[in-house]
């Protein structure tokens, strides 16, 4: 622990800290350009100059590199320091007269014009070396470095040629203080586009995400990508998130854990996914950044989103005209035949939000307005009164005009005419559908799927939360489209049925199981291989097959197969079935 005096104030420094770190930790402001807390200090820009007095000698030193030794006296704003910073900013401004961040800093020190002529007025690079050090120390791709010396010094890949060493991570772009580096997204390696714009590889899906913690997208994360690209040779690139996490919550070595639980009841609540409107080209999804899905609208409108809740076009302007198209992918023989149930109401809500936040004109293209719930019809009326134009007719096509505007074409069935409207933003209310891995889930639990792709309930009217497999229940949209109140009710039903089942402690199983008449069994073992539940075992000592009644589901396959007729299906015995058959044909006496 060292003690220093900064601007007359006593402060304490930990082992290995620099003057800059101690100063900033104690609230002293020192400007920097080439400093970054996660990188080795470099001392190139000279802006962090402070006066250091040691053993009676006063010197100007860069605070980012100078260790915070015990007994130092530091002045961060003495006249010499101010003068030095002023001159340096004048030099920087003379090198890069058109870089805003330098202009602002220079202005703080009273410089409005570059004091010296610039060699290249469009120059943006101040040779701070942040990109070089980031690429070398954190990303470990070693793509960027300095070449040439003096005023000819410049930064770039070897021979300033494009190189495949660059993984397109964009770290250099982010760290550059002057915006001198651009990333060409289309040529970048993997660069994930999250809803409404790229984010860092570690991100919280939304402010309302549950659990509300960040996740790492390992396809975009530099560490994982470098590990893959170099086959494990560079396994520790970047890791900045781990360095800054005070809780130490980031662990790159997490592996998928396979957990085996023995349970008696399962509730399948695997939800839904949004249908991708790119599958129908007439909506031009993906051809303009202002054609968004209803879900993307939710991200946009969320106060925790990238626009802090403002409804903005991709270029930052507020829209003046917005169209909302219902039934995109629903009620469509070319996509999903069913109605997705929730879209009409959320589309009305979104129309209301657009009117409220931007005052833009809103056009809703709908086929039928499904306002089936409590207060829904009233809300529909209210939205109409707010001036949202309702056009009864499916929005058939969205065309991207050369000036960027969007032309929505459809039929207005009330007018009996084809109409079109040119808008700034189009919101597609897309269908919801069963998740892409529904087949695998179904196979796991022996569930069947209805025609619409969602999981089949035991009975459409009477048993909406149960499935044909005992102990497996369905909750929510896994079973079919429904909105929040209905989901809550559905899930509550599933929960209570599950609880009822669990609560029993002992359950009564169906008595319709198979049983072997051990006198008749000929030990041919035909039945054993047939049983899908491995409920029949061959007992060596007794030389017979025996059915485990707890496992037997009573399908009767073994019964029909036994050549000796030694197995009987309780309650579905041969005699009983034959009696039924006979009963059908008995002629009354």
């Amino acid at each position, binding site marked *: 622990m060292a003690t220093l005096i900064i601007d007359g104030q006593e402060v304490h420094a930990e082992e290995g800290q620099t003057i800059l770190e101690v100063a900033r930790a104690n609230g002293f402001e020192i400007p920097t350009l080439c400093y970054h807390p996660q990188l080795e200090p470099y001392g190139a820009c000279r802006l962090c100059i402070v006066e250091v007095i040691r053993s009676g000698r006063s010197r100007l030193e860069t605070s980012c590199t100078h260790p915070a030794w015990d007994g130092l006296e530091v002045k961060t704003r003495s006249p010499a320091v101010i003068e030095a910073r002023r001159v340096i900013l004048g030099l920087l401004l003379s090198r890069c007269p058109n870089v805003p961040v330098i202009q602002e800093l220079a202005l703080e020190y009273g410089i409005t014009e570059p004091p010296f002529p610039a060699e290249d007025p469009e120059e943006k690079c101040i040779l701070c070396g942040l990109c070089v050090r980031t690429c070398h120390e954190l990303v470990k791709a070693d793509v960027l470095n300095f070449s040439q010396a003096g005023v000819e010094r410049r930064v770039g890949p070897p021979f300033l040629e494009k190189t495949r060493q660059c993984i397109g991570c964009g770290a250099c772009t982010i760290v550059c203080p002057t915006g001198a580096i651009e990333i060409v997204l289309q040529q970048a390696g993997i660069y994930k586009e999250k809803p409404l714009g790229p984010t860092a590889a570690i991100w919280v899906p939304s402010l309302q995400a549950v659990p509300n913690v960040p996740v790492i997208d390992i396809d975009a994360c530099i560490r994982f990508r470098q590990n893959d690209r170099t086959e494990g040779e560079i396994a520790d690139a970047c890791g900045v998130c781990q360095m800054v996490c005070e809780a130490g919550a980031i662990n790159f070595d997490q592996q998928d854990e396979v957990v085996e639980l023995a349970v008696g009841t399962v509730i399948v609540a695997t939800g839904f996914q949004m249908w991708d409107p790119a599958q129908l080209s007439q909506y031009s999804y993906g051809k303009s950044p202002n054609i968004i899905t209803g879900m993307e609208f939710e991200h946009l409108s969320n106060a925790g989103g990238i626009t802090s809740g403002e409804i903005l076009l991709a270029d930052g302007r507020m829209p003046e005209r917005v169209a909302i198209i219902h039934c995109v992918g629903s009620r469509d023989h070319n996509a999903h035949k069913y109605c997705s149930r929730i879209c009409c109401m959320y589309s009305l809500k979104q129309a209301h939000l657009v009117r409220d936040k931007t005052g833009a004109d809103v056009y809703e293209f709908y086929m039928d307005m499904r306002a089936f719930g409590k207060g829904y019809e009233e809300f529909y009326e209210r939205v109409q009164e707010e001036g949202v134009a309702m056009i009864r007719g499916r929005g058939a096509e969205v065309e991207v005009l050369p000036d960027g505007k969007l032309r929505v074409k459809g039929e207005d069935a009330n007018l009996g005419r084809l109409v079109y409207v040119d808008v700034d933003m189009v919101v597609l209310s897309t269908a919801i559908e069963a998740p892409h891995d529904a087949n695998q889930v179904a196979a796991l639990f*022996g569930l*069947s799927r*209805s*025609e619409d792709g969602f999981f*089949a309930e035991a*009975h*459409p*009217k009477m048993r909406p939360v149960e499935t*044909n*497999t005992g102990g497996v229940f369905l909750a929510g949209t896994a079973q079919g489209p429904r909105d929040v109140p209905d989901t809550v009710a559905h899930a509550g039903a599933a929960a209570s049925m599950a609880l009822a089942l669990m609560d029993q402690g002992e359950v009564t199983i169906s008595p*319709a199981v198979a049983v072997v008449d051990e006198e008749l069994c000929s030990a041919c073992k035909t039945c054993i291989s*047939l049983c*899908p*539940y491995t409920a029949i075992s061959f007992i060596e000592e007794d030389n017979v097959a025996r059915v485990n009644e707890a496992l037997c*589901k*009573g*399908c*009767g*396959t073994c*019964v*029909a*197969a036994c050549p000796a007729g030694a197995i009987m*299906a309780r309650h*579905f015995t*041969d005699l009983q*079935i*034959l009696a*039924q*058959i*006979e009963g*059908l*044909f*008995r*002629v009354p006496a």
Partner: protein
Amino acid sequence: MSNNSFEPRIVAFMCNWCTYTAADTAGVSRMQQPPNVDIIRVMCTGRVDPTFILKALALGADGVLISGCHPGQCHYEKGNLNARRRVTALKPFLDAVGIGQDRLRLEWIAASEAPKVTEVIAEFTDTIKRLGPSPFRRRLEDTKETKR
């Protein structure tokens, strides 16, 4: 006997989970179907012993329908595959003894396919109508008695 007045008697073995449920749904939904089918519920089509089919035919059924879950979707995993095998093995026998394999039909109808139940029944009834009464039936009528 003229065929216009011939009303086939068809015995249908339906598996409890799929086809029986679909038939139930069809009924609940008031779907129309010919009245010629008598349903015997089994837990799985795999339960259907060939002797049941033969018994039904012997007792005077004009046609036998076996219907269960689609292969791969059997509630008991693969019971229906056994049914398929048995029916495949039985059909040549029916031809050989003069009943004709067309009187035995194997169909896969899932629980959600209620319309298919009515469709298949209508179709099969039609088929049997065209085929006429089963040879066993004529003899039975002659005897006007069934023996156990």
